[in-house]
């Protein structure tokens, strides 16, 4: 019987080996490590989406214009534009991430803009979702 082979990052099998850092940096000792690829990727995505294009030294294409887009009037056209920006950026910097659903919404009464994305990672059984709330 055929079965689908799933890859597991070797680091995920070594519970004492840290993968990356969690953001924001606000643990007791400033930095808190994460120990699973899933968590590391989620933090990398947050870091990527919250970095403005041109903000990173000697890496001007890193980041998205998402933060700027979120402060514009959210209509159907804008939602499509945001989705396109996100998918293009993911193709370049996170080629193994496959976004399933991308939602952008605003809550003007609470001065809040939200960005939601559910995604899976190719060749693994990792699925996760990301929600970024930006207070305006």
């Amino acid at each position, binding site marked *: 019987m055929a079965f689908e082979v799933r890859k597991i990052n070797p680091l995920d099998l070594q519970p004492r080996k840290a993968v*990356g850092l*969690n953001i924001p940096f606000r643990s007791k000792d400033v930095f808190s*490590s994460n120990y699973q690829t899933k968590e590391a990727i989620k*933090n990398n995505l947050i870091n990527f989406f919250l970095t403005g294009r041109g903000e990173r030294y*000697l890496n001007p294409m890193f980041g998205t214009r998402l933060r700027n887009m979120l402060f514009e009037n959210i209509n159907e056209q804008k939602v499509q534009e945001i989705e396109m920006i996100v998918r293009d950026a993911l193709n370049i910097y996170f080629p193994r991430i496959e976004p399933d659903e991308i939602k952008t919404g605003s809550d003007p009464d609470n001065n809040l803009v939200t960005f939601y994305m559910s995604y899976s990672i190719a060749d693994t059984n990792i699925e996760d979702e990301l929600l970024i709330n930006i207070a305006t």
Partner: protein
Amino acid sequence: MAETRDIKYINRNFDDFRSQLIEYAKSYFPDSYNDFSPTSPGMMLIEMAAYVGDVLSFYQDNQLQETFLQHAKNPSNLYSLAYMMGYRPKATTVAETILEVTQTVDATGVDNKPDFDQALVISENSTVKSTAQGQTTYLLSDKVDFNFSSSYDPTEITVKTLAGGVPSEFMLKKKVHAFCGKIKTTTESFTTSEKFATLTIDDDNIVGVLDVTDSDGNIWY
């Protein structure tokens, strides 16, 4: 005893610092950090450290460069290096002084204040001649404007004469920097264009060249 670690001091630009820091983290912190993709927050910190190293290296190079006579760019460093090698410039210097310039103006009829409509403006480079023996000529280095007063260039106002208990005349006093010398003009003719043409001015005790203009009024540097 402190552990000896392999740190190289010759890689001193952003990319070299970045790759050195990655290698350092891989070698000495293999259990603490393993995500070296450009999107990770840890790489952001590593790149920030590389950026600081890159900038500091630039200044270090710049400082070193300023210690060599053939590469120094800062004029004061160049002079210091030249003095160190025994060079003594033969600079022409002139006598300088601070002059007090006064003007008497009438009082206004309304509120007995100085009438600044009568205040004069003496342009810069005006000549002033000493009454002492030799009648030395001085040039004013700045404009004297009795209408203008500030903490940097104050106009002192005193009552000069009284008439019926009220001021009728005021004396305005300002200070101006003056130096001994004359402004002379020399004219040279050019027929064909020439790169970095050199002229010899046929005169003695030249302090400096104020400006160079051509017959069309263009200024040359």
